[in-house]
């Protein structure tokens, strides 16, 4: 009688331990999988971010090489005495560079591809008296007009 009371006093029947154990294992498995997935997605995000940074600085390096070439052209154009003509001629030979006359000098514009969707746009104004001024050095979307990714927003014109 006493033994029976003692056993019942535990309040644990056969099967209770199994149910609790299954519940604990399911909970722990769920937490483990969720934490692993969170860590994995965070790691993948950082990898992508690091890859983009590499691509950006690769494009930045190419843009600076072109800038160095343009500066060299501008330097020799200043020494020639006919800055605008000389600079337009020599800078126009560099691939992808568009040269237009600007106030007191020439403006050179070029784009360097970062990846499939982005490009680095550069605009530099070279002064006839020597030196240059960077007007634009920024990454922008390289999506062309008419592409599916273009969002139709109001352009400010009232029909």
């Amino acid at each position, binding site marked *: 009688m006493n*033994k*029976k009371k003692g*056993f019942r006093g535990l309040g*644990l029947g*056969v*099967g209770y*331990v*199994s149910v609790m*154990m299954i519940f*604990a*294992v399911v909970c*722990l*498995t769920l937490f*483990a*999988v969720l*934490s*692993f997935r*969170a*860590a*994995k997605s*965070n*790691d993948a995000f*950082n*990898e992508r*971010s*690091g890859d983009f*940074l*590499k691509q950006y*600085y*690769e494009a*930045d*390096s190419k843009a*600076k*090489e072109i*800038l*160095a070439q343009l*500066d*060299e052209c*501008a*330097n*020799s154009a200043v020494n020639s005495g006919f800055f605008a003509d000389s600079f337009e001629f020599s800078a126009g030979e560099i691939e992808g560079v568009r040269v237009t006359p600007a106030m007191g000098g020439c403006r050179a514009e070029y784009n360097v591809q970062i990846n499939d969707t982005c490009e680095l746009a550069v605009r530099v104004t070279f002064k006839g008296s*020597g*030196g*240059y001024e960077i007007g634009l050095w920024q990454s922008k979307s390289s999506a062309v007009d008419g592409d599916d990714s273009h969002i139709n927003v109001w352009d400010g014109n009232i029909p």
Partner: protein
Amino acid sequence: MSEEVISLKTKHKGSRRPINLFFAEIIIALLFFSISGAVILRVFAAADEKSRRSARLENVIIYAQSLAELYSETGDIEKCAEMVWDKAVVRENTPEHISIYLPDEKTTFDAYEQSEKTAAGELSELKMVFTAEGSEIYTLTCTAYISGEESL
């Protein structure tokens, strides 16, 4: 008398059976729990390792970006490193190579510089390599162009 003994024996057997079942169940449950616990712990450990690696990579990317931006402006890696890290331990410092140990990140930073003089200025390339526990974790190459007027 003999009937009483038999009834006592059966009563005794009847009360022990659930206890034995209960302990057998506990033993099986513990065995299963320890096996699944070991697997779950491994998953937690892998998640923790991935999380640490990710956090380290994130910090390294931020350092690399800061250094690249500063280098683009100054063209002097020693100055850039001084501006970014105040607790860094410089291991090697030559004009072509600088090696810095970052105690907080347990990471080594190596920078290799190559300069090329042009008619109008100086174009220099910097390769940054971050290493932790003997393996390369991130590499970034950036360029600085300092025109003749600025470099003078």
